[in-house]
C-alpha cells in the first residue's frame, strides 16, 4: 500500500468524508462541541431530535451514572423545527460538515409535518427518523416496535422527503431483523441502531427512583456488545446500509461495528467523557487501516459475515 487509506463512505448517494458521525441527542446541534473540534473532520453531525413545536422534555433529574454507562430520560427537549432551521442549521452549514437531522413526533402526522418542513431545505443531507426514544409517552418507542406501524411511518416519511431517510431503531424488541425488514419494505434508504436500552436505577439509601421518569435509556460502553450483535443481525437481514452505534468509545469499537456490518458509525455518550473523541476515532481508524494494510475503509463493512 502506497498512499493514505481511503476513508470515504457513501449512504444512499450521500458521500461522507469518513464513517464517524455523532449520535443524535449527545451532540446538540454541533455548536457546543464545535468549540472543541473542527466539525469538518468528522463524517457527519446528527442533530438532536426536532419536533414540529418546542418540547419541554421531562423534569430533572434526567441523568444518572451507571456501571460503564449512563441512563437518561431527557424526553426530547427541543426548540422545534422552526428554531432549528433559523438558528441551528445555518451554524451547521457554516461549519462545513454533513448534516443529518433527527426527526421526532408523538404520532405519524407530527413526524410528517417535520419532514415536510425539512423537505428540500438546502444543507440537510439526510433525515433520521426517531421511532425509538424510550422517554416519551406517545410516539418514539411505541411506533418503532410494531413492524406494521414502522413500515407505514417509513413510507410516509420517504414519500415526503427529498433527502434520504434513515430510520433509527430501538433495541427494545424481540427480533431486530423484523424491524429492519419493515423499514426496508417501507422504502427506508438506511437504518441506524441502536437507540438506548430501557433501564432503571433505584437509590437504595433514599429508596426512590433516581430518574424523574423512573425509567431511562441506557447508553455507553455497557451496551456495546448488545449493539454489535444487533447491527450484525440487522445488516444481514436487509440490503440497505446500516449506521451502527451503542457504546462506541474508541477506534477499535468503531471498527468492530463496521466488521459487524455497519457502513458508518455514530459516537454518543463518549462525547461527554472526551469532547475530542470523534476526531480521535477518525484518526484511530486511519491508523488501524494502515496497520492492517487495508486501503479502503469500506473493506471493513461486514467483513466477518
Amino acid at each position, binding site marked *: 500500500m502506497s498512499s493514505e487509506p481511503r476513508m470515504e463512505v457513501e449512504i444512499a448517494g450521500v458521500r461522507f468524508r469518513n464513517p464517524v458521525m455523532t449520535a443524535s441527542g449527545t451532540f446538540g446541534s454541533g455548536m*457546543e462541541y464545535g468549540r472543541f473540534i473542527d466539525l469538518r473532520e468528522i463524517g457527519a453531525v446528527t442533530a438532536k431530535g426536532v419536533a414540529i413545536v418546542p418540547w419541554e*422534555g421531562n423534569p430533572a433529574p*434526567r*441523568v444518572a*451514572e451507571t456501571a460503564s454507562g449512563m441512563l437518561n430520560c*431527557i424526553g426530547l427537549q427541543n426548540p422545534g423545527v422552526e428554531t432549528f432551521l433559523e438558528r441551528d442549521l445555518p451554524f451547521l452549514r457554516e461549519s462545513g460538515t454533513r448534516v443529518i437531522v433527527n426527526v421526532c413526533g408523538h404520532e405519524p402526522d407530527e413526524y410528517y409535518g417535520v419532514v415536510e418542513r425539512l423537505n428540500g431545505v438546502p444543507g440537510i443531507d439526510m433525515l433520521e427518523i426517531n421511532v425509538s426514544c424510550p422517554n416519551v409517552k406517545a410516539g418514539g418507542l411505541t411506533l418503532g416496535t410494531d413492524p406494521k406501524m414502522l413500515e407505514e411511518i417509513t413510507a410516509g416519511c420517504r414519500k415526503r422527503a427529498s433527502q434520504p431517510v434513515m430510520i433509527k431503531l430501538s433495541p427494545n424488541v424481540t427480533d431486530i431483523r423484523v424491524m429492519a425488514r419493515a423499514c426496508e419494505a417501507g422504502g427506508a434508504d438506511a437504518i441506524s441502531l441502536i437507540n438506548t436500552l430501557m433501564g432503571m436505577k433505584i437509590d437504595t439509601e433514599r429508596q426512590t427512583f433516581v430518574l424523574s421518569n423512573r425509567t431511562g435509556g441506557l447508553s*455507553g460502553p455497557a451496551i456495546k456488545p448488545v449493539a454489535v450483535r444487533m447491527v450484525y443481525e440487522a445488516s444481514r437481514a436487509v440490503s440497505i446500509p446500516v449506521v451502527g452505534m451503542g457504546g462506541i468509545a474508541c477506534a477499535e469499537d468503531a471498527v468492530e461495528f463496521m466488521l459487524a456490518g455497519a457502513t458508518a458509525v455514530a459516537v454518543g455518550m463518549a462525547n*461527554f467523557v472526551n469532547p475530542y473523541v470523534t476526531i480521535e476515532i477518525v484518526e484511530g481508524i486511519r491508523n488501524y487501516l494502515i496497520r492492517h494494510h487495508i486501503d479502503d475503509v469500506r473493506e471493513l463493512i461486514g467483513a466477518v459475515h
Partner: protein
Amino acid sequence: MSVKERAYVLSQDMCAEGIFSLVLRVSFAGQVCPGQFVSLFTDDKSRLLPRPISVCGADADEGSIRLVYRVAGFGTEYFSRLQAEDAIEVMGPLGNGFPLELAEGKRVLLVGGGIGIPPMLSCAEALAYTAHEPVSVTCAAGYRSSDTYLLEELEAVSEVIVATDDGSLGTHGTVIDAVRENGVAADIIFACGPKPMLRAVKAFAAERGIPCFVSLEERMACGVGACLGCVAKTERPDPHSLVKNARVCADGPVFDAKEVDLT
C-alpha cells in the same frame, strides 16, 4: 474557550472533616471567573461521567485553580486521594459565573451554605481585588458546625457573619437568620448553596427588593450544554429550547433568582 486536558495536582489539603482543597495546574487559569465550574474525571473506566466542581479560586500567574469540595460519593472520594504530582483529567472553564460587574460601587451580600461557600470566596476575592469602584462585601457563611473551612480567608476580604446548624458558632440557624440578626443591608446578593437555602435567599431578596443571583446544582452529564441532562425550571422561555427549561451547565449555573423556579 473550554478545553479538556490532563492536569497536575500541585497540592491537596483537608480543610475540615470531609472537605478538601485541591490545587491543579491548568492552562486556562487566567480565563476562570467566579461562579464558573470545571468537570473532573476519575480514571475508573466504569465511572465515566464528569463531576462538576465549582472553582474556589484561580491564580493566573501560577497557572492554577483551586477546588474546594465535600466528599460525597465515589468521584469526590477518588479526588480526595490525589496527591501532589498526580494527574487528573479536567475540563473547563464551564458555565457563566456571577455578574460581578453589577456589584460595582454596591453593598454586596454573599451567601454561601455548606459546599456553596467556596465560590463565594472567589467572589469576595475578586470584588476585593478587582472592583473599579469601592464595594463593601458581607459574606454570610452557613456551616453544619464550628468545624469551619475557608473562614479566615473570607475574613481577609470581607465582613463575615456565620450561622451553624448546631449553634456551635455564630447564629444558631440559617444564613438568613444570621443576615436578619446582624441587620445586614445590601444592594445586591450572590448566593450558592443547597436548594432550601437558595429558596430562602430568593424570598429574602424579593421581600427587600434586592437583585439576587443564585448558583444552582443539578445532576449533569456533558457539562457543556449539549445533552440537556441538567435543567432548571425558568419563568420565561429558556434561550436554548424556548421551553422554560434552562441548561444549568451552559445557561447557568448562575441565574437571576427571579428567573428560576426553586420550588
